[in-house]
């Protein structure tokens, strides 16, 4: 469903994404991992048709990413979601369903269903300007799902959500994937990726370092520790975990052991 082939994106002299290959199939939940500035958001913006690649191909359901057909198939939750301050949450959802041409009766039922799923009944008819970050995030999730997308792309999905909302969102991701939707999720939270994802891809400096199931990565890289250690060793930021130096004196911010008596 999502097909990224040899994609490079340059910002002037800087190469943000470097010959990246990525595929997310129907019914699959793919977690896109990488340190800050690794090129995750740039890749996601190319998948959503907001940026054009300097070279390479991005296809959504076989369509060019910038085409109207691709946008009809896609639901997108950006890292900094946008809502109209002077619309109520319900009006925003009605705008989205109208934009995607949903039949009115079906659209109303779907909106009510999502209001219940995301527990938004108490505030859905208030102006979005009065919403907290978490409330906004829930409306944006609902708007991305309200037209039953075949592909869901989510950048940092759990930012600003309380544990209950986070649980709802995580369940929804799995449910979407099981119902045949291709879900691409970019996250820093390795535990979430380990818990939910069918496959993970680790990207750094714009290049895909490794991709596959967590077990495949462990076996290929001969690394049997937690995903966090695997990630850190791949991205070159490895530092000894606190537990490994416990009792051996202080460490500095880079994780290097310091002589006893060094002030922290």
């Amino acid at each position, binding site marked *: 469903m999502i097909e990224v082939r040899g994609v490079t994106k340059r910002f*002037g002299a800087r190469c943000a994404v470097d010959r990246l290959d990525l595929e997310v199939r129907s019914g699959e939940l793919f977690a896109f991992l990488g340190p800050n500035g690794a090129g995750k958001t740039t890749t996601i913006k190319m998948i959503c*048709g907001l940026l054009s690649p300097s070279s390479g191909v991005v296809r959504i359901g076989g369509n060019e990413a910038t085409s109207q057909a691709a946008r009809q198939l896609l639901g997108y939750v950006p890292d900094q979601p946008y809502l109209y301050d002077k*619309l109520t949450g319900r009006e925003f959802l009605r705008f989205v369903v109208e934009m995607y041409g949903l039949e009115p009766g079906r659209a109303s039922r779907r909106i009510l269903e999502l209001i219940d799923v995301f527990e938004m009944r108490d505030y859905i008819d208030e102006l979005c300007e009065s919403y907290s970050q978490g409330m906004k995030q829930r409306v944006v999730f609902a708007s991305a799902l309200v037209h039953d997308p075949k592909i869901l792309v989510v950048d940092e999905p759990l930012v600003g959500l309380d544990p209950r909302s986070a649980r709802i969102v995580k369940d929804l991701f799995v449910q979407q994937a099981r119902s045949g939707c291709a879900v691409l999720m970019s996250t820093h939270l390795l535990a979430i990726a380990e818990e939910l994802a069918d496959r993970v891809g680790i990207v750094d400096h714009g290049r895909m370092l490794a991709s596959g199931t967590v077990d495949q990565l462990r076996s290929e890289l001969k690394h049997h520790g937690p995903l966090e250690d695997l990630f850190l060793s791949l991205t070159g930021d490895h530092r000894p975990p606190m537990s490994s130096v416990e009792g051996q004196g202080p460490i500095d911010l880079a994780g290097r052991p310091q002589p006893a008596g060094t002030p922290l």
Partner: protein
Amino acid sequence: MSLVIGESGRIEPPPLPAEQTARALRHLRWWLMRNTVRSVLSGSRLRLTMILCCSAVFWLGLFGLFWGSFEFIGINDALVNGIFEYLFSMFFLSILVMLFFSTGILTYTALFHSREGAFLLTTPATTDRIFAYQFTESVGLSSWAFFLLGSPLMVAYGLTNGAAPGFYLIFLAYLVAFVLIAGSLGAIAAIVVANVFPRRQKLVLSASVAGILGLGALLGWRLWSTPGDALSTDWLAGVQDRLAFAQSPLWPSRWMSAGLLAASRSDWSRSGYYLVVLSAHAGLAYLAAAAMARDLYFRGYSRVQGNRSARRRQGGYWFDALFHRTFFVLPRPVRLLILKDLRSFRRDPAQWSQFLIFFGLLAFYFLNIPRLGYAVQSPSWRNLVSFLNLSVTALILSTFTSRFIFPLLSLEGRNFWVLGLFPLRREQILWGKFVFSVGIALLPTELLVSLSDAMLGMGPLMIALHAAMVAVLCAGLSGISVGLGARLPNLRESDPSKIAVGFGGTLNLLVSLVFIFAIVTALAVPCHLYYLGIEHPEAQYALTHGAFRFWLTIAFAVSLVIGLVGTVLPLRIGIKAFQRMEF
């Protein structure tokens, strides 16, 4: 959603009718307008009343000015013949240029830099449909001022010339077509800039504005230097010759002025002809803009987003050290805040380029004073011009403080979690802004006013007096902008230009204008009466030297008191509000 899977495995969603997204965007606009009106009506009645009253006063003031001007021109038969067409052509040409720039800038921001633009690009709406939606809003925002300026002009003209009611109706049709031409051309320019100069948009804008201002200054200079006695036939012929370029039949402003003047004479066939010409070109210009948006919007968006400057900015530490040493009397946290604001000022060309352009043009004018012959005029005339020059400098400074200093606190509100944790009192933040504003304003204004006085050949006493007045004005205008900025902040808005044109910014500008008027009038009156007495000792209110010294001392003391109140009172109000404020 029923999907079709093609032979190549491509998933084809059902085609979306073009009208579907258009309807959704129309509904969106309706909901937004309705909810905004409801919010305004349910908000502060005082604020709404004040906005309406200010607009009404502004409209009536302009109407009175235009009415008086048309009456004056009407009694001079030599002026009536042909001069209106020149005046209207020039007026509409100036408006055309302003609308071109304002709509271009607003469209550029809406299409290529707004989060709404990014959001709409992820929906199934086509790029020309998104353009149409954003363009309508940009044209509305940029043209309301034209309506506020143009409507009293047209009503005053219609009434003084006994125009038929149809004249006022046809003006509205002309207005729509005219605004559409200027806006569409501005939008085309915005799309071209995004595609061709994605990293140089500010440079292109600055160069264009400087070019236009340069041409304006050249035209002004040529008009000033028209030979012959003012209002004589030769002089009028000279003025018309210099304005002849505005009469080119290729300018939409010419079609507008010719058509409206024909309508005022009830020459409907001629007026209708020009309306058709104007409307046809408006349609063509919009079509061209929409076609360019369809083909180039996405490409331009990608280029603008993909070419954001990532230039490393280092150095300048010698300046920091010098600043700390020079202003050691200020508390260190205040100095650090000022340095932060100075750095932001230096890195934002929108701020210093406007500062540079306006003050540069003033300096150009002041340097040309000897060529304009003011320096050889009578003392009372030179005194009058010196006060007028001082007023213009202060007025430009007030637009600067309203546009850039007033929004500082509103913008700081978003970063208050940083400032709030610093070991300094909240009032110190305001004092820091105040000192920053005074420091930025004082140097260029003092230099400009001294230059003006030197070119006019004013005496040392007047130069010293003007220098002191400029200091008082800088402190007062800074105090007003910082104080009101803290009292009436807009913490939701991140765009300083939108903060400046809001209620608080408008009130700030009005208070600043009243302050300038009070300070300048207090000192200009005794000076004028004194110099008048030198030329015409028999004049009724002329002051003798002794009386002048007495009244000047009184006036100086009064202006100092006004300056002190104008500086301290808004700051106190601002500090109190800022200390109570929750972020």
